């Protein structure tokens, strides 16, 4: 088991009701983590509509997770 900090923004913040959480998980990569979270929160956005970042860098969904990693799930952006 590892502990992953996950931060939620915009639509995902509203759907989870959380700004962030520490999740104990066996997920080895971002795909498995997303599937686990989708089971908990029934996100309306599919994974294909999101990007993910680990420790302040955008990553491939295949990125492996380490204990203590901070993950941001990034819904479609609209800055500017």
């Amino acid at each position, binding site marked *: 088991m590892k502990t992953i900090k996950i*931060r939620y*923004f*915009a*639509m995902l*913040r509203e759907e989870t009701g959380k700004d962030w959480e520490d999740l104990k998980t066996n997920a080895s990569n971002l795909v498995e983590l997303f599937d686990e979270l989708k089971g908990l929160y029934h996100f*309306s*956005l*599919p994974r*294909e*509509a*999101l*990007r993910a*970042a680990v420790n*302040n*860098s*955008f990553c491939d969904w295949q990125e492996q997770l380490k204990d203590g990693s901070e993950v*941001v799930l*990034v*819904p*479609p*952006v*609209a*800055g*500017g």
Partner: protein
Amino acid sequence: MISFSITDKEIDSSTLKEKLGTAEDGAILVFEGVVRNHNEGKAVKSLFYEACESLASAEAERIMTEAVFKFGLSRIVCVHRTGHLNVGDVAVFVGVSTGHRGEAFAGCRYLIDEIKHRLPIWKKEHYLDGSHEWVNCSHHGHNAKHEHGEVSV
């Protein structure tokens, strides 16, 4: 000198602009993205911007470094606003200075395009009819890549 910040206060363009320009710079270009009263046919009352500040700052640093490398910009100042904004408020400021105007135009355009496409910043539009919506999040799934590239200004 390159600088990016996120603020929930009003953007003070005059003060930011003073940071641009050196004795070698012949061109200063400042872009401001402003809240419009309409978007895609709907009348907009106000906006709410939300950002993941740590990730946005790290990604903005990468974008600005790319712009210096590609266009030889001398100075860059970028600021993005968060929180509730009304029509006419400045949402984003992108100022550059450099020797010649060609690089200033190309570099400034690159910066605002990449900021809009890449930074983790989200916009909820509140419409005059009382409805609201996270921009770019309503039609999803079939063409996510395109949606990430969708922009409003």
